[in-house]
């Protein structure tokens, strides 16, 4: 069969997955007496209805891109970095900690921001390597290790917000005391949107693309991911490469967490990771681990996230609808891929 025809068939099956996902979600909506057409148009309106919303979509796009870039590295090495949520959180905590340290000092705020972001990357990397060490040296599967570390990071975060770093007066779910504006990453006009964040995620994308496509390191990671035993026999230092994969992913997750603090919330809030980590894993699966697709699919997911904000207000629907839609999308595309292999394999 010609390659172009195979590709067309692939796209057909993926579109089929998309249709099935929307069909499934429509059914769910009908089940709870909601109008699917209204819900979907509200999602669309909510995402692109005005410039503020479009800007918000890009605010969300940044961490999703960074996190997805990170998980592509661990996926390549055959690892399920489920601990990525915790890595984002720890990154945010480290960033907040550094800014707090310099709050009342004469140190140049620009330097503080840079330092705090570096600290965030360090924090994310540390948390990731911890999951890696558990996996490599103690055989604790990274799924369980990472998941446990996620819960610990969340507890640490909440402990800080309600404890050591609580607002003067009353601690609350709204987070720590916001930083003075000099410690904010400059934004574009009045939007919450920062060109620096966009720039950083684009750089991240390019780095990951070339790392995985063109470098010896990327190829060795791929070998480790495909068969750890064979890779070892061929002379690759496998556990070191696995830890490095965790490290790189942690740096990206930490950076995402840092940007949530310095560019978006300007403080530490309880759900600082916002589920972006898991979303990154889902997107990784959806795009079949191809770096080239990260930017557009992350944009799509970001738009759904922002669009979903209107749902509770207008239709009294839980915003979890977004998650259901994203999840069923990945699920049905994956299932259709399986159906395609079955159908084509039998020819």
């Amino acid at each position: 069969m010609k390659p172009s025809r195979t590709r067309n068939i692939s796209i057909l099956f993926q579109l089929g997955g998309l249709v099935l996902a929307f069909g499934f979600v429509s059914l769910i909506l009908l089940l709870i007496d909601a109008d699917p057409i209204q819900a979907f148009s509200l999602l669309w309106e909510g995402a692109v209805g005005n410039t503020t919303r479009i800007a918000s979509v890009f605010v969300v796009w940044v961490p999703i891109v960074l996190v997805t870039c990170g998980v592509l590295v661990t996926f390549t090495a055959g690892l399920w970095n489920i601990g990525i949520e915790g890595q984002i959180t720890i990154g945010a905590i480290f960033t907040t900690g550094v800014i707090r340290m310099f709050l009342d000092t004469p140190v140049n705020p620009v330097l503080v921001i840079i330092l705090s972001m570096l600290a965030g990357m360090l924090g994310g990397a540390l948390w990731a390597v911890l999951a890696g060490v558990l996996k490599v040296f103690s055989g604790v599967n990274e799924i369980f290790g990472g998941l446990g570390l996620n819960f610990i990071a969340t507890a640490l975060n909440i402990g800080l917000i309600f404890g050591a770093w609580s607002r003067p007066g009353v601690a609350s779910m709204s987070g720590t005391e916001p930083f003075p504006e000099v410690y904010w990453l400059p934004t574009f006009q009045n939007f919450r949107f920062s060109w620096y964040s966009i720039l950083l995620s684009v750089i991240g994308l390019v780095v990951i693309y070339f790392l995985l496509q063109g470098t010896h390191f990327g190829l060795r990671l791929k070998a480790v991911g495909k068969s750890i035993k064979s890779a070892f026999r061929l002379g690759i230092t496998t556990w070191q490469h696995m830890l490095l994969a965790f490290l790189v992913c942690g740096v990206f997750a930490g950076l995402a967490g840092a940007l949530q603090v310095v560019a978006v919330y300007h403080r530490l809030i309880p759900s600082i990771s916002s589920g972006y980590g898991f979303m990154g894993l889902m997107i990784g699966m959806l795009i079949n681990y191809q770096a080239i697709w990260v930017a557009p699919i992350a944009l799509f997911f970001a738009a759904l996230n922002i669009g979903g904000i209107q749902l509770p207000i207008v239709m009294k629907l839980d915003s979890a609808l977004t998650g259901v839609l994203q999840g069923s999308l990945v699920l049905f595309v994956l299932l259709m891929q399986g159906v395609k292999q079955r159908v084509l394999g039998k020819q």
Partner: protein
Amino acid sequence: MKIGFNQINKHFGEVHANVDINFNIQSGMIYGILGENGAGKSTLMKILSGFIQPDSGEIVLDGRVVEIESPADAIKFGIGMLHQDPLDFPPMQVIDNFIAGQEGGLLLKHKGIIREFKALQEQFGFTLDPEAYVDTLTVGERQQLEILRLLWLGARVLILDEPTTGISVQQKEKLFAALRVLAQQEKTVVFVSHKLEDVEVLCDKVAVLRNGCLVGEVESPFDTDQLVELMFGKLIILKDPESVSGDEIVFELQNLYIEQYPITIENVNFRLHAGEVIGLAGMEGSGQDVLLRACAGLQRPVSGRVIVNGEDLTGKNYHEFIRKGVGFLPASRLEEGLVPGLTLAEHFTVTSDEKQKLFIDKTYFRSLSEQMIDEYRIIGRPDTPVESLSGGNQQRAALSLLKDSLSIILLEHPTRGLDMESSIYMWDKLRERCKRGTSIFFISADLDEVLRYSDRILVFFSGRVSKPQDSAAIDLDQLGLMIGGKGWEQEIANEETYEAISNA
């Protein structure tokens, strides 16, 4: 039971594994299916035993065309098969293996069945402990268990796929005796093998397969040359290669003591000369694999020393061993040799010395892999994923990945599953390296191979290691007896003198 094959065809992808196979097997005889690796024997037998279905053609049992859809179906027709790798449950007890798959009843009733088991095995002189765990048995004993199980289920036709690989002479004799008993009981025994001598001794009639086709049927007594010619399409005379062993010591084991449950290997002393080939013989799990892995730095010895080129590498890791000139080719090529999913070019990239560079020079590695593909006659392109290569080509690729200037190459079953041409080619390439001073340590379950290519042989029996045997001074039968634990009394007596010599 009378078995008929009628126009059987089977394809695997592009490979035509069985081509228009037609022949009949009468009951009450031992019928041989002869052919080299890849000739299509196993495929045909898997079709007969219901494991796979033919693309076309039919199986006729006692004049009736039957559809055998699964192994369970096959056993209902009275056909049972022993697979080359025993299909049993290693972590379970013998008796549970025996029961599993038996129909009727809900509860496991061990007592009565143990009695039946013992009565049945007595008929054949087997002495299995029904409560032993299967992972403590030898391959030969696992075969015995499978034979008993299939007979108990009512098998009237017993297919055995390469049953004489990896078992001792004693076990082989026991097996052959049991098969003759079965033939006398009017059961049909189908004996699949690529070993002429076994077929000649045992079978009443053979069908020879080559490249998926039936090329002839011959009745006992057999003419060896005729069988060889049928098998290979021409007469092949294998020359024993000349030794190129030098005087320089390249590899040395001193008082090596290794523990790897359940095997303990004690006090191994050995010196290997440049260009020398050493074969490690023994039944599976007798300790040869443990020793080989210790030589590769993959198994840490409890005490003793491993010395490569005069340098003590004891306790160093595998990668240090590689750097110091040790090469290792494991048995399972796609599980721990090559990386499935990576292309040939990517393999050459990963193993090259250019690792410290950041970016991959794709043109360079493309031409490098084209050059290696040429040199090692691999049938494939630089962008062919290794898993789509044939077994022989995978083995050539694995060999081509080993650096040129090695002190020693360690191989597990270098020609397992390869056809004759590929095997010969593999050994030619290895001998070339020997001439350049590389020495070889290899494990093989094929005693012929061990005898033919080794300069000296180490025999293993449940963790005991013999003194090096000169391959010119030992024959197949002696070797077969030794791997089964016979003839070691002499060994023990000799041990002291040997130690005195090796320490001198």
